[in-house]
């Protein structure tokens, strides 16, 4: 398939064209840029829902149920499930389809499995662009299941409008251990496997942590409307580098830590006095579907909340700003690195920094003044 045919078929709603477009974007083929350019105007409509939580919590099983429920409500659904790439071989076994047998025969559902390809944030580098394609293709809801490796899955929060954290009963201590990461990314919490003992207790524990536990840490209580003034825009901007120092040597400008990206404004208020979102904690049993309807209701409620409070539009702006910043920073960094390498400056200055004749700040200054611009 060439690009023109593909785009044409994509616009006509051809699933094979969509599938191939995803492959190109994932592989970063030369056509990928044009694909994104052409489809970008049609994005921004879908409700992107993230599903994160430890491995085995039942995320895939739950996604299968969520998709069925959304279908009952007449929504079309795309599913993206990310699984880890083996660090040894670069290969991966993507097994989430096994758990999604309920919905996969429904033509209103499309699912794609992605390998993390070495990226550690719970999703792969291309996941955002893949979601964009699915959005442009016209799906109403996009469910994104993360790898589920644990604490550092904050990236889903940036990609999704509504992030659901899936936990299981009896994780009390684990929750304590990971709460900093977990509590901040969730707009919704599902205690899955509620058929097991201890679900009510887990719900209570999470509720308590949400209400009290966070206060001391972030210095604010996120739900009482006293969020830092004017920080509504800040959180989304924060994510894209306020806390990071550009790390030129690795080519990665983002080193901001998870803890730095506190989620105050996602749930708190854009302007003091607005209504706020207190993440609900629900019990689900993905195995037999109990609690799933209620969870979907809350997802939709959260969407309405985002829209009614103007956050939906704000997010779009912030996403745009973030994306721009990301691209500019990446490209600028790459350009400077390429030029400095070609000119031999990088090697020379690296040696000087290593033997302590020049400090890294002065060296970076020198590279930037010589190779940035012109």
């Amino acid at each position, binding site marked *: 398939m060439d690009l023109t045919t593909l785009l044409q078929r994509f616009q006509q709603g051809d699933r094979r064209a969509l599938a*191939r477009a995803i492959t190109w974007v994932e592989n970063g083929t030369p056509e990928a840029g044009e694909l994104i350019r052409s489809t970008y105007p049609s994005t921004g409509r879908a409700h992107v829902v993230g599903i994160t939580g430890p491995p085995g919590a039942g995320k895939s099983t739950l996604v299968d149920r969520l998709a069925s429920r959304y279908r009952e409500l007449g929504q079309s659904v795309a599913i993206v499930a990310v699984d880890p*790439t083996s660090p040894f*071989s*670069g290969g991966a076994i*993507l*097994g989430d389809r096994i758990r999604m047998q309920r919905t996969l025969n429904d033509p209103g559902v499309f699912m794609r499995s992605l*390998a993390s390809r070495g990226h550690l944030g719970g999703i792969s580098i291309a996941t955002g662009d893949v979601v964009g394609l699915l959005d442009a293709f016209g799906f109403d809801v996009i469910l994104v299941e993360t790898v589920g490796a644990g604490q550092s899955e904050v990236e889903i929060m940036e990609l999704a409008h509504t992030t659901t954290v899936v936990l299981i009963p009896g994780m009390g201590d684990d929750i304590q251990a990971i709460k900093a990461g977990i509590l901040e990314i969730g707009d919704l919490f599902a205690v899955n496997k509620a058929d097991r003992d201890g679900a009510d207790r887990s719900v209570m524990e999470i509720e308590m942590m949400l209400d009290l536990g966070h206060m001391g840490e972030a210095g604010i209580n996120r739900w009482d409307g006293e969020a830092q003034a004017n920080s509504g825009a800040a959180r989304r901007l924060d994510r894209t580098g306020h806390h990071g120092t550009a790390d030129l040597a690795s080519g990665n400008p983002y080193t901001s830590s998870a803890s730095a990206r506190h989620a105050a404004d996602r749930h708190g208020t854009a302007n003091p006095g607005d209504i706020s979102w207190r993440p609900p904690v629900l019990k689900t049993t993905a195995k037999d579907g109990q609690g799933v309807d209620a969870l979907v209701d809350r997802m939709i409620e959260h969407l309405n909340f985002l829209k009614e409070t103007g956050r939906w539009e704000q997010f779009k702006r912030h996403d745009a700003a973030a994306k721009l910043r990301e691209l500019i920073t990446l490209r600028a960094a790459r350009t400077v690195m390429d030029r400095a390498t070609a000119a031999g400056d990088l090697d020379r200055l690296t040696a000087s920094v290593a033997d302590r004749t020049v400090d890294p700040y002065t060296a970076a200054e020198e590279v930037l003044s010589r190779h940035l611009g012109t």
Partner: protein
Amino acid sequence: MNRKLRVLVAKLGLDAHDRGAKVVARAYRDAGFEVIYTGIYQRPEAVAEAAIQEDVDVVAISSLAGAHLTLIPQLIHLLKDQGADDMLVLAGGVIPEEDISALLAEGVAGVFGPGSDLDEIIRFTREHAAAK
């Protein structure tokens, strides 16, 4: 470019024997492939749909029941109907010698009987998937 070969390892019909499918899935993973595994008891329609949505380069069918002559051709027709005839379709498992030519004629690119060498399967897959 960050191209990875993607392979769907699938079982068709009422065939519970997944030892071979799992061994092959691991071998592909260890050789750097991205492997989609859809589990046992799959209908040809479901496998074709998965192959298309996942946009795989290769569909590897493991068959240890007796229905390969019914179900594999069905799958191939479904793929063709949807314009996915560029996918490399491989079959492995308990497939009698005399059925091999029938499967090849239906469009299966390679048949790997009992005792096939994993490295040989991978080498064949690389060579033929890359060539398309």
